[in-house]
């Protein structure tokens, strides 16, 4: 089994929430090294060479993202995105609660690397426990002289602000997050300008995912080659994959990218007894489904993209042959309809239409034409919105309607007989 312990090292064994425990395991040594021995450019160089790609969903190379910041002498900001709400994803939640110091150390290193003096972490409102855990970790680190000014006897100063969200999936989108952090409605902004040029308070800003930043201490400790040589060339490194759905032992598994989906299924205990897997959603609620014939595909950014889907946030949901895909599709469509910020008409109205149509089908009130309507509406609302939320409806819905059309049709023609596909 390819399971590894990098970011997840010590979780479940030691109380990593305690600063002393974290330090005894080598914690904050890389932070100290960065400040006292490395220039920001050197940290940027390590990150670029490692090939690390963002772990929040888009998979954009982290080093390149940092390099877009203009040298205009303006203040710049680092924002850690801990608004994890992508359906099926629960890795940042775990990192925040189990190893808050690792998250903080990563944030500090990233902030230093981009030449910023102020880092923010935007914590999802529902993570109240995680918020308190992180606040405690931050207080410990501050008291130990790891955050603040005059760090390690140098003139390096970094301040950290913790900001709680209040229940809005869309705030995981970086420009919506920045609006929310500024005390506004969490509505995405038109891009460009990108946050690197005009972000928080109109200043150059980098928004990075929790897992991305938590990887930084390990890159400094082990060197970029250690990371770059793992997995596919353009999709290297280790990744925490959240596996859920119809498996015996769902959970977070840290694996090298490129691990076959079948091995992820085995790590999660395999399918339930007497059942077989018929579909896999490989990258969170916004990704298209793969099917049983895809189980041997390696799990990495590019392979997923080549197969018409995405790795996204690294959330893999397995569906077995007991699945009611009408119900599953409704759950996701209702989610996007509910979470639409309402700025763009196609997303605001289209999601709602699809929800109503699916409810009709599920509850025996559907029309034969509703199946085509689902495909048509979900396609028409795609690609014409400010942000990717509206575009996130079509992939899963269209992929399961096409694959399990008989199940959808059965609901329309004979609702009382409609059930599972097996």
């Amino acid at each position, binding site marked *: 089994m390819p399971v590894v312990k990098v970011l997840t090292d010590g979780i479940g064994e030691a109380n990593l929430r305690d600063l002393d425990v974290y330090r005894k395991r080598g914690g904050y040594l890389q932070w100290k090294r960065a400040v006292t021995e490395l220039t920001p450019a050197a940290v940027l160089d390590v990150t670029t060479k490692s090939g690390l790609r963002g772990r929040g969903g888009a998979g954009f190379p982290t080093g390149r993202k940092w390099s877009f910041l203009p040298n205009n002498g303006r203040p710049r900001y680092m924002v850690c995105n801990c608004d994890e*709400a992508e359906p099926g994803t629960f890795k940042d939640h775990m990192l925040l609660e189990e190893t808050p110091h690792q998250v903080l150390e990563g944030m500090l290193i990233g902030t230093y690397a981009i030449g910023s003096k102020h880092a923010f972490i935007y914590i999802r409102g529902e993570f109240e*426990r995680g918020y308190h855990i992180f606040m405690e970790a931050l207080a410990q680190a501050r008291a130990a002289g790891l955050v603040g000014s005059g760090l390690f006897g140098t003139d390096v100063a970094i301040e950290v602000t913790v900001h709680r969200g209040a229940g809005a999936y869309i705030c995981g989108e970086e420009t919506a997050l920045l609006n929310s952090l500024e005390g506004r409605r969490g509505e995405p902004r038109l891009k460009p300008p990108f946050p690197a040029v005009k972000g928080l308070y109109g200043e150059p800003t980098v928004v990075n995912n929790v897992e991305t930043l938590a990887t930084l201490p390990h890159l400094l400790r082990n060197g970029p080659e250690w990371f770059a040589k793992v997995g596919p060339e353009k999709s290297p490194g280790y990744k925490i994959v959240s*596996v859920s759905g119809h498996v015996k032992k769902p959970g977070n598994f840290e694996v090298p990218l490129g691990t076959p989906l079948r091995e992820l299924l085995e790590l999660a205990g395999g399918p339930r007894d007497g059942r077989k897997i018929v579909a896999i959603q490989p990258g969170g609620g916004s990704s298209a489904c793969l099917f049983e014939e895809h189980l041997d595909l390696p799990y990495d950014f590019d392979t997923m993209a080549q197969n018409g889907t995405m790795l996204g946030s690294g*959330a893999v949901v397995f569906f077995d042959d007991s699945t009611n895909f009408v*119900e599953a599709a409704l759950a996701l469509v209702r989610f996007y309809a509910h979470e639409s910020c309402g700025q763009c008409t196609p997303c605001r109205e289209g999601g709602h239409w699809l929800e109503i*149509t699916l409810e009709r089908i599920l509850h025996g009130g559907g029309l034969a034409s*509703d199946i085509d309507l689902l495909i048509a509406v979900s396609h028409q609302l795609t690609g014409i919105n400010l942000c990717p939320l509206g575009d996130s409806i079509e992939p899963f819905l269209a992929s399961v309607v096409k694959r399990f059309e008989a199940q959808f049709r059965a609901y329309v023609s004979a609702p009382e007989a409609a059930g599972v596909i097996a």
Partner: protein
Amino acid sequence: MTERDFSATAAKVEPEARKLIAQYPEGCERSALLPILHAFQNVEGWVSPEAIDRTAAWVGVPRSVVESTASFYTLFHRRPVGRYMLQPCRNLSCIINGAGEIMAHFRERLGVGHNQTTQDGLFSYEEAECLAACDRAPCMQVNLQFYYDLTKEKIDAMLQAMRDGTFEVAPLPQSAVPGLDWHVAVEAERRSPGAQGVPDPFDPGGLGDRSGVLMIERLARDPEPIIARPTHERLIADGAALIAKPQRNGETH
């Protein structure tokens, strides 16, 4: 809104609000808007109009701006809620692992639906979106504390402990009597006026059946009244709520 003395609450929150504002760069006081609303809700159990007023004054924006911002975020309760906020997850990994039954059980046991509070003011119930605990599905939050691997038995035990006052999670503070509904009927309200063919709660047949012909045909096929089905029940209930504006002790519920 009856007059009430807000000065004690304001005095309690103000020092924290000042600290929250100081966390952001100068001139960026508005960033503390959400955190201050959280602070008020922690004290009062909801975001009251008075809390909106104070927040507006402290961060230096008109109250309409605070209203508009607060209304965007589902965690802020704009009306008083019960002592226990019950939020089972209704998203994908939970749904395919039995969340439907869990939600039906809650509705049956509580006698209220989504976004509603029980008559005794003890429970508020909201079906929530993915809570990022999919490995322990079906899951829920009670006053933002996580509960996992839910079963009907666990729910019954939980509700009983809450009724007995022995539940491990502290109840939410109560500063005003909760009403039946604590959200406006969002789904019924947000349909664009004049949108063609968009089903509305008063249209019995739904999409593509404004005249109700298909519904009558369906009723002829199936003797069970169509309103017994969850979709229509909900649509009709939302519609009724809009017309009737049910009172706490009214007969509409």
